């Protein structure tokens, strides 16, 4: 089911992500997804997230789909040239996977195999445009595809709280131009900054899902502030996490904060995208607290 259909129907689209394991056994992922994520609109499957080698996003999407979930195939340009990217997109279509989230991908040097050749033959923008080309019945070299062309709900990401927000907006515009139909954002903590970003992003007229990462501890928040691009956890939030260590450890504080952010931003967005990072079990509670 294309998430674009859901947006069109005016549904508030809630998605969450799962990370495939480093190994070839997918049963665990499927079970966890069935237990905690089956109520959601769709499930993102990450593509060797943070440049760490794992089982493929496409294979994981396939088993999730078989298990009755609606997968969003995350595809990065880090590891494949334009031949492999197009080929994998056709493979996805062959499996009936019709949601794709296009990303440039982290640099190889950031992951567990820094020796690898960083490809970046295409980037997120040209990948979106490539999908549009495939949808027209041709590959990007201009050769005709056999049979009906594939169609996808084409998603992209944006960092609303980036310190270079204007450069991000300009990139968002290019993504729209290249064919992006919906956006998921990097994790948001500073709602004021996010809302002012959304005011500017409104002009592109594309549904946007608010990105949520559950805060597990004050340490995690400080680490993300220091090292993760586009993330800014305000100091009062860190203080809140510090205030009641037991409550934070139990996950309650993080979920409460996330729910508050969702409630504040909900009028400005068309959905939420939750990156639980191992706390998938907290998602039902979050949904309830956020009133979703």
């Amino acid at each position, binding site marked *: 089911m294309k998430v674009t259909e859901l947006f069109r129907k005016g549904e508030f689209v809630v998605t969450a992500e799962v990370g495939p394991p480093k190994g070839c056994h997918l049963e665990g992922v499927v079970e966890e997804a069935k237990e905690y994520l089956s109520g959601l609109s769709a499930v993102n499957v990450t593509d060797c997230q943070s440049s760490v080698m794992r089982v493929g996003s496409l294979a994981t999407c396939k088993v999730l789909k078989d298990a009755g979930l609606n997968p969003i195939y995350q595809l990065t340009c880090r590891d494949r040239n334009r031949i492999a990217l197009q080929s994998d997109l056709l493979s996805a279509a062959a499996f009936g996977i019709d949601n794709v989230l296009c990303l440039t991908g*982290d640099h190889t*040097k950031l992951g567990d195999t820094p020796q690898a050749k960083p490809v970046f033959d295409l980037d997120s923008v040209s990948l979106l445009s490539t999908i549009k080309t495939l949808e027209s019945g041709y590959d990007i070299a201009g050769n005709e595809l056999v049979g009906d062309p594939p169609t996808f709900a084409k998603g992209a990401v944006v960092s609303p709280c980036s310190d*270079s927000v204007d450069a991000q907006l300009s990139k968002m515009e290019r993504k729209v131009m290249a064919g992006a139909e919906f956006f998921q954002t990097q994790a948001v903590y500073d709602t004021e900054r996010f809302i002012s970003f959304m005011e500017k992003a409104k002009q592109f007229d594309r549904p946007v899902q608010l990105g949520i990462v559950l805060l597990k501890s004050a340490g995690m928040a400080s680490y993300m502030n220091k090292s993760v691009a586009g993330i800014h956890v305000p100091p009062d939030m860190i203080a809140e996490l510090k205030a009641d260590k037991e409550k934070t450890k139990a996950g309650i504080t993080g979920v409460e904060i996330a729910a508050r952010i969702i409630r504040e931003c909900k009028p400005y967005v068309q959905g939420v995208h939750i990156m639980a990072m191992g706390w998938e079990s907290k998602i039902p509670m979050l949904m309830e607290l956020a009133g979703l």
Partner: protein
Amino acid sequence: MLITQLKNREAIDALISGTCFIVNCHGCGEVSFPAAEAQALQAELASQGKVTGILTTDYICSPENMKVNLESRRSEIDEADMVLVFSCGVGVQTVAGYLEDKKVCAGCDTYRLPGFQGVTPLEYDCEQCGECFLNLTGGICPITACSKSLVNGQCGGAKNGKCEVDPEMDCGWERIYRRLEQLGRLDLLKRPVQLHNYATDDEVYKQNN
């Protein structure tokens, strides 16, 4: 334009079989040659009786210059089981091409240096990609200034205007954005999707052959 670094000691030891004649090229020395390390290593090899001679010269990438230099030491080269060259990859290939029957090995690894005017390292870099993007980017090269060589704008990895690969390196697309803003040319970012053409080297090759 090329800088060299000594291979590690185990790698060099593994190369040496029997005796060797050593060639050092200081041609780009004004840029970089690990002279002191190479000298220490070679003195040690010599003290073990593994060296028939050491030639320190420059510009062995020039075949004529390399030839007159090697010929001036012919007997020492003939006497050795192999020739060990401390130079960039071009120098090693030139020597290996000339001494075709001899085992010729490289004692160094070669790195590229930004810029290619003379051997002065430059603050600008050009990868000679063959399809200049500078007209779209306010004269800042996205191929070299962005660690992913992206041609359609900033990725999500920039933090505080710095690159995700190196927090001391400015994000190339951040710089491009600022420059275009300053020039009043942000409209350039609305150009059609750019695709990098990787076949431009063949064009040059075909043109020259």
